[in-house]
């Protein structure tokens, strides 16, 4: 297990923005996450999907960053979905009740379908 700085890319699938998270979600991820969020929401998407397939270590500070994203999404009524979480981090998302506010999906297609359902 080695430390890896997080990088993000933002993709569009129709009216849904997908943020790919690659690396560790910790305090150092804040700037990258902020930039990605600004880019993903610039055109007012129907939903934002967080792709955790490339994510490594997620600590409590990383959880706090995701809570921050959820708060911002709530303010703009943009649904957030997620996929690609390992069972361990899915458990953590459930214990912290992040999963109540961010729908967890098994893969990207399911997440996109979920996003489309939530926007109709």
């Amino acid at each position, binding site marked *: *297990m*080695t*430390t890896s700085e997080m990088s993000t890319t933002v993709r569009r699938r129709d009216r849904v923005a997908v943020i790919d998270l690659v690396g560790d979600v*910790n*305090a*150092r991820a804040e700037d990258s996450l902020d930039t990605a969020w600004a880019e993903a929401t610039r055109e007012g998407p129907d939903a934002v999907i967080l792709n955790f397939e490339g994510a490594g*270590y997620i*600590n*409590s*500070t990383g*959880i*706090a*960053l995701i*809570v*921050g994203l*959820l*708060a911002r999404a*709530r303010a703009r009524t943009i649904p957030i979905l997620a996929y690609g979480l*390992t*069972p*361990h981090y*899915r*458990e*953590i998302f*459930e*214990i*912290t*009740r*992040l999963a*109540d*506010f961010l729908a967890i999906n*098994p893969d990207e297609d399911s997440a996109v379908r979920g996003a489309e359902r939530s926007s109709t």
Partner: protein
Amino acid sequence: MSTLTGSFRRRFLDRAGVDRAVRDAASAKPVALVDEPPPVDIAPNDPLLAYLQGASGVVGIETLELDSPALTAMKAAGVQLAVPLVSQGELIGVLNLGPRRSEQDYSLDDRKLLDNLAAQAAPALRVGQLVRQQQAEARTRERFEQELEVARLIQQNFLPKQLPDLPGWEAAALYRPAREVGGDFYDVISLPDGQVGFVVGDVTDKGVPAALVMAATRSVLRASAQRLVEPGEVLERVNEHLCPDMPPKMFVTCLYGVLEPATGRFRFANAGHDLPYVKTADGSVELRARGMPLGLMTGMAYEEKETVLAPGDSLLLHSDGVVEAHDPDGHMFGFPRLKEAVATYPGGGELIDLVLADLREHTGPDAEQEDDITMVTLARAGGSTPAEEGSAPMRQLTEFDVPSAEGNERLALTTVSAVVAPLGLTDARLERLETAVGEATMNAMEHGNGYRADQPVTVRVLSGSGQVRVQITDQGGASTDRENEVPDIEAKLAGLQRPRGWGLFLIKNMVDEAHETSDGTVHSLELVMHLDDNSEIEHEGGDDDDE
């Protein structure tokens, strides 16, 4: 002018009106003058003061008529002129002049010159007086802070460095000094036949005097406990030792109890200390035993009582800093609320954490702590069997230090994971332990050591009795910068809680047991995973098996 200066006699009054000789302000050396008349003291109620205060300039002493002892003394000393030094309407000094060396009278020009001199000297003198006053106040403040630091050091050096590891029991303690260090103390004493003595006490007064009496009490109590064991006899002996040398108006309250870990029998005596509480299956009860505080008078007897701590019971020893904490409206936390907390909350370190959270809620988050806070808890594991109580000692697998620097929690969790992996935890449970170790190390580096690289976090891994224990220790035993708030996602999303604050919550949810202990020096969090419990949390969809 040499004649004039040669005859100067300088006398000043401080702000309280007390007359005192003032030496040369710059050099702090007296100016050596020839033919100086002896100094004249002016009492604060002497009418000469009022006269000089109201005078418009130089005052001729020889012709002045007042019923004033100071005036009489000045005349006898040969003073001819008195020049009042007035600054902002306040008489701050008097310049006394004897006869001119030429033996001629003072001329009108001389008097004008003296008036001008007084007008310029008075403000300068006042500035000098104020500077001196501020310097004296700064020295007093510095001395006070140094004394507080000495008191803190004494207190911390006499607190136990660690608590005993008693199979089937959980002991936890907290000592949190107030800014003006009080006289709280606690101690844990190993006694013959596996018995353990528990002490909590409070010396009246604060600062160094209280710390010194605390140190003496602890030493005498330790020595007496080894010889006598019976708690009542021990307190009697301590009282006899302390009485002859106890400073006036000081005394010590103290609760001393002896635990037999194998049976749960707890014998105790009380020298006027706040009553301990025991949580039993029927709620919380007070442990009462009569006795006068230590150091008040000789020949005191101390009632001895006993109880049995059953499996699941927990005991709280505490100091008055808990119940006497005030809310902003002046209401005390109070005994009933503490008793209720003991009845409601789990025992051990968790009880201390929860009582602290209640206290914080009661006083308000920014309130300065009024008095030292000390809590010692002793909890007997619920339903423990004799086999568990007599289980094999823990074996240390590794101990290492992690420098307190951002990101270093990864070093701790990977090292612990490698050491623990062969013990048979499933991958999922190992991953949970990793997360707990990472979070605990982060908390220790940040809240305990303030990310100071020269203060490492110590990690110990032990195994035995079907458990693996990871102890994470920092140097912030007195730190108040710990997570106390239970995180609530909805409150966080509504902006009512900060986004952070998940660490301790995650830790407690990731491991089977988490025990927190603190004293004035170090803080330790012990994470426990049961090796024979590999059950997994089930998730919806059933796709969460180890990958």
